[in-house]
């Protein structure tokens, strides 16, 4: 029942218990992952054998390769960062263009295009992956057969991973930026134009500053979604695996606490990103 109506004692107790259980369910796996990054044992499993930083700092000589010495993991973190940067740049750029297109212009087929733009969100990630894989390899074969061209970027690898992730993250960026552009008061632009500003100056000094929170927000979300993506990436990955794929491979072999260490690192990175966004959101004019 809502807060303005009488709530019997048992209902209040049940609500509190339910919320407690729910929050435990939400946070227990994360807390466990974090705690076992510091357990002095070769496997992330109980019992607790004391505190150690080996899983961060350890080197091969100590028999434990910590996160900061694990070149494969560090390399895959870097791969993920590079991929995420590309996906973010492409998604925000295309999302901004789409937002202006859908909010400011009328053209034949606009309705169909707006539905088509949402479609990537309802296609399972695995299928996005295999369709792009099949299509790009067909193009590569065609280029090879017709022109004798060897188009390496169409073979499984990072360019395809970027394309696969971008194919649906662009939709999310488009929705976020469109939502803000829709609320924009166009009389501000008209006033500036009447006062003699050029179109470029209006965009630079009025429209883009207004859009900035949505641009930053969509960039952060795009980066995060790219960094976390697994389903689409798995189908398109080549020799250089991003972090999620590397972690998945290691988890199938049997986890070592270094995975907990890298997970804790990811949690901290996400938390910093989230806090920065919240701060930025508070300062931004609405």
């Amino acid at each position, binding site marked *: *029942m809502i807060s303005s109506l009488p709530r019997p004692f048992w209902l209040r107790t049940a609500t509190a218990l339910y919320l407690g259980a729910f929050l435990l369910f939400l946070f227990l796996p994360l807390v466990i992952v974090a705690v076992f990054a510091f357990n002095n044992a070769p496997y992330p499993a109980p019992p607790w054998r004391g505190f150690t930083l080996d899983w961060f700092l350890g080197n091969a000589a100590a028999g434990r390769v910590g996160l900061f010495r694990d070149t494969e993991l560090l390399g895959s973190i870097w791969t993920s960062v590079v991929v995420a940067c590309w996906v973010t740049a492409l998604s925000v750029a295309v999302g901004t263009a789409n937002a202006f297109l859908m909010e400011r212009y009328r053209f034949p087929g606009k309705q169909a295009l707006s539905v088509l733009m949402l479609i990537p969100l309802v296609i399972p990630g695995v299928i996005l992956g295999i369709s792009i894989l099949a299509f790009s390899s067909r193009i590569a074969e065609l280029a090879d057969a017709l022109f004798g061209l060897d188009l390496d970027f169409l073979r499984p690898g990072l360019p395809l991973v970027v394309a696969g992730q971008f194919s649906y993250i662009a939709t999310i960026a488009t929705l976020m930026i469109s939502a803000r552009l829709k609320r924009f008061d166009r009389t501000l632009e008209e006033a500036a134009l009447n006062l003699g500003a050029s179109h470029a100056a209006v965009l630079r000094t009025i429209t883009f500053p207004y859009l900035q929170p949505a641009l930053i927000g969509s960039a952060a979300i795009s980066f995060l979604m790219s960094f976390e993506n697994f*389903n689409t990436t798995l189908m398109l990955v080549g020799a250089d695996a991003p972090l999620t794929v590397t972690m998945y491979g290691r988890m199938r072999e049997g986890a070592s606490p270094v995975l907990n260490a890298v997970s804790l690192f990811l949690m901290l990175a*996400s938390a910093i990103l989230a806090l920065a966004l919240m701060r930025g959101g508070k300062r931004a004019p609405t």
Partner: protein
Amino acid sequence: MAEPLSQGLAQRAWQRRLVLAWLLAPAVLWLLLLIVLPHVDLALLSLRERIAPRVYRPSLTQYRTFFVEPLYWQVFVRTAIMSALATALTLLIAFPVAWVITKVARGRASALLFVLCLIPFWVSETVRALGWLILLRESGVLPALLVKLGITPVPVELLYHDATILIGLIYTSLLFMVVPLVSSLESLDNALIEAAYDLGANGFVILRRIVIPHAAPGITAGCIVVFMLTLGNYLTPTLLGGKNSQWFTELIYTQFIVRFNWEQGAAFGFLLLGLSTAMVALGLRLSGQRFVDVMRRA
């Protein structure tokens, strides 16, 4: 006098067209090259059969295999049922939480609770699956706890059960249910509930006659998104279910990447896409909503 003005107008119209073309280009390239053409290609791939190296002919063999081979359609049905079950359970678990956030807690407590619900989803699904692995496997935290409490004499394996897969799927899906539920319950006027209460309705009647009809758009949006994500999930079922997971995306992966039988994999992909689309359409039909509105809400 009239001449330069109309010329200026014509030039403006032409400029506007040019800008429109520049704005259309990225959208068209994106959707054509990464969505439309790949799926047309995938459809063609699924509808051909290899009769000799590099020689193909149109055929329905792949789809026939799916219906003839019991393993394939059983896994398909199983994936669909488990996804539906996970969606329903996610709704049941998330609804009270969304209710507390919007109607019971106030001000800061409500905002804090909402943020707490969002936090786990800032962390990669891989990390969350790792957490469940450490908690549930035979040498893990919960089996050890059960032994300590004297509930089981020896550690039991809690991984690799259907229930484990369901827990993992619900866990990954909660956010996508809580957010649309909260946004649809927020717009429900408390006065309606108070009025119903004053007129003698009990909690159940209020829920059925007022709350659920009002929250229907949010419920539909949440269910559609959760079902779709669950159906297409690969990571959680394979890690938490192990060899017993029997998830349809796993079959697609095996055909495509392991066996290199792209024709069969493409057919499986289309069957999954068909199921996903059918469920989305059904959800929309049942709640009488438009696709565009639902996606905006989600």
